[in-house]
């Protein structure tokens, strides 16, 4: 297992890091979503158009590369359909050879996926109301993945078709993360778009990419929380010394850092597995998502605690990250769900051995 980055990958990461820190200050997302001002939403949109559309094609690149890019994205809170378009919708469209795939990849169409039904599971189902549709309101098209009212068992098939977002009946459902809107969308028949089919197995594989990339984004979110906290406790003085010199805080931060390091490594391991289509990719995805979600949520809490009163204010950016960490952990399967999938897999293979 070689975790070393190629010079190109290092450059990709540095480029992404510079891009997000330069072009996506938190004021952008505050003006658009948290304390909306006139022109705020359009400024965020313009920044997305100018700087991120060209990167949607990352969804066609290796998963490792996309994770490197999206980890940097996670260290900045943006309101932009980047993950939805590039890690979720594009791979689904590619998997069925949908004609819109190229236009999503070249940045001319933004997209999201409507899949989860009333149970909140990212599995093909026949529910008319699709929930947890990410970035609805920011995208041009919605990719429906639906099982026509039948439950899809392994080996079953789902249909995929595209509907322009503007033609849909939808309701934005407020969630903790005001920068990544979620919506309930009523399924609409394909219309002119010919439905294509995808097997449940293929759908699962495509979603693994989206899941691991989301995990990478959460690692970036946790990393921002960690770096911001370390910087703060190193300079904030109480009792005549930096509060970071108190072991009561140090140990908390050390334990949380260990978790973050492990989660980050697990994410890139999973990304490598998917790129290599290694048989461990399924388990590795569950490990990556639950580890990344747990570390992002833990860092959000610990960062808050280590900041004291100032971190509890709306004016401080910490809560933007706290909200994102808690919302992202619950997308594409919360930790409990991924653990459950892992348990099923672990105990099934145990059974076979016996």
């Amino acid at each position: 297992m070689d975790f070393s980055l190629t010079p190109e990958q290092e450059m990709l990461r540095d480029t992404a890091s510079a891009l997000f820190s330069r072009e996506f200050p938190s004021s952008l997302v505050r003006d658009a979503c948290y304390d909306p001002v006139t022109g705020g939403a359009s400024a965020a949109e313009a920044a997305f158009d100018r700087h991120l559309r060209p990167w949607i094609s990352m969804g066609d690149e290796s998963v490792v590369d996309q994770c490197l890019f999206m980890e940097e994205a996670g260290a900045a809170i943006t309101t932009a359909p980047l993950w939805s378009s590039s890690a979720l919708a594009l791979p689904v469209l590619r998997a069925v050879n949908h004609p819109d795939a190229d236009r999503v990849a070249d940045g001319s169409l933004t997209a999201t996926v409507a899949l989860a039904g009333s149970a909140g599971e990212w599995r093909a189902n026949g529910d008319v109301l699709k929930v947890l549709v990410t970035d609805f309101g920011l995208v041009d098209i919605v990719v429906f993945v639906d099982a026509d009212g039948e439950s899809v068992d392994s080996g079953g098939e789902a249909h995929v078709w595209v509907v322009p977002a503007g033609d849909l009946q939808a309701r934005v459902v407020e969630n903790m993360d005001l920068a990544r809107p979620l919506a309930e969308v009523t399924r609409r028949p394909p219309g002119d778009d010919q439905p294509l089919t995808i097997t449940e197995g293929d759908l699962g594989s495509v979603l693994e990419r989206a899941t691991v990339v989301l995990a990478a984004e959460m690692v970036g979110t946790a990393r921002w929380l960690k770096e911001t906290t370390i910087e703060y406790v190193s300079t904030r003085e109480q009792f005549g010394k930096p509060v970071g010199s108190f072991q009561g805080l140090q140990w908390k931060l050390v334990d949380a850092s260990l978790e973050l390091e492990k989660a980050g490594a697990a994410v890139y391991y999973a990304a490598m597995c998917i790129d290599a289509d290694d048989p461990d990719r399924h388990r590795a995805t569950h490990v990556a998502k639950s580890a990344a979600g747990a570390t992002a949520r833990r860092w959000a809490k610990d960062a808050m605690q280590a900041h004291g009163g100032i971190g509890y204010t709306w004016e401080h950016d910490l809560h933007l990250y706290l909200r994102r960490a808690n919302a992202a952990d619950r997308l594409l399967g919360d930790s409990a769900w991924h653990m459950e999938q892992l348990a099923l897999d672990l105990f099934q293979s145990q059974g076979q051995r016996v």
Partner: protein
Amino acid sequence: MKLGWDSEHELFRSELVSFLQTHAPPEALGGRDLIGTDTGDIPQWARRWQAELFDNGWMVPAYPPELGGRDADPLECLIYAEELGRRGIPRSVHFGGYAIVGPSLLEFGSEDQKAMAPAAIRGDTIWCVGMSEPDAGSDLANLSTSAVSDGDSFVVNGQKVWTSYALHAEQCFCYVRTDPDAPRHKGISVLTVAMDTPGVTVRPLRHITGSAEFAEVFFDDVLVPVENLVGELHGGWRITMGSLAHERGGLWVDGVASAERAISDLVELSISLGRGSDPVLRRQLTELYVEVQSLRALGYKGFASFAQGSSAPEHSYMKLASSELRQRLYETGMDIQGSFGSITDDAVAVEAGRWQHSWQVSLAATIGGGTSEIQRNVVASRVLGLPRG
């Protein structure tokens, strides 16, 4: 050791319960954990309720009637806290006035200041407590807001921060430095400052929930009459934190009661979401139940020593344990909702987003009033007797 209290005290309980049943306004019921810790304003019903409690001797039961009480003994005070806590009924949405300012004025104030106590306890005067400053949080003794006496008045300059209710307060119970040359703890005094005095500016700060519950307060050459000094000059360090001595034995009840309520709500929530037989969830909730119940027992054990007049080390654990426990309970409430755990939409979210909101509110519980780290330091040195680092 025995279970239950004697009949005389149970009589007190039934009298209280019938008062609550007939008088508590609907807004005060339901145990929403936001009340008192996240209200941007002080609603009319809460003002009326506080006054009603006071007038009926149910505001601070240990006090005599003229101070909103009924000369209750420590056990009665405990019963009082139990019954309010069990129902999630707040006495007041701003604890500063009745829990900190009123008692401090009564203990340390001049006759004129003592006369201000009933209004503080009844909530007729809204008070804020100005302790924390940008450079004085955990290390309160580092405060630097200065008060220089010119004979008739103090001239106050400086800044307070995270001051709860400052936006609505008429008075500030303000910690100032009166002797910059003395050792840190010996140069602090307390002044009452009318918030409409020229030179006082309040800039609202919002919680992470968005509510403007606290604020920054700036003092710019504010003239405060010398009569407004509370207690001795340079003797302010003694006047720290709530002096509800009679109630101290029962203050923990509220945290435990809200945790107990949360557990039974979580069980109900799991069942209503069809997860009542999920073994993982059942285990999680039973573990939390074990914690709440043992914490509750510990609280009562501490009360026994308190009632006999000895110090109760148990109480030092209570804030620490119950604030951290509360965060876990509310987080579990979000987790039970699975994929929908971050949904806050009034119309769609489980219980209109109660768990998500309460969780965010609970994050302040391990910071305000002394952080969990500071609580641990206190337990280490005062309870365990460990040497200081």
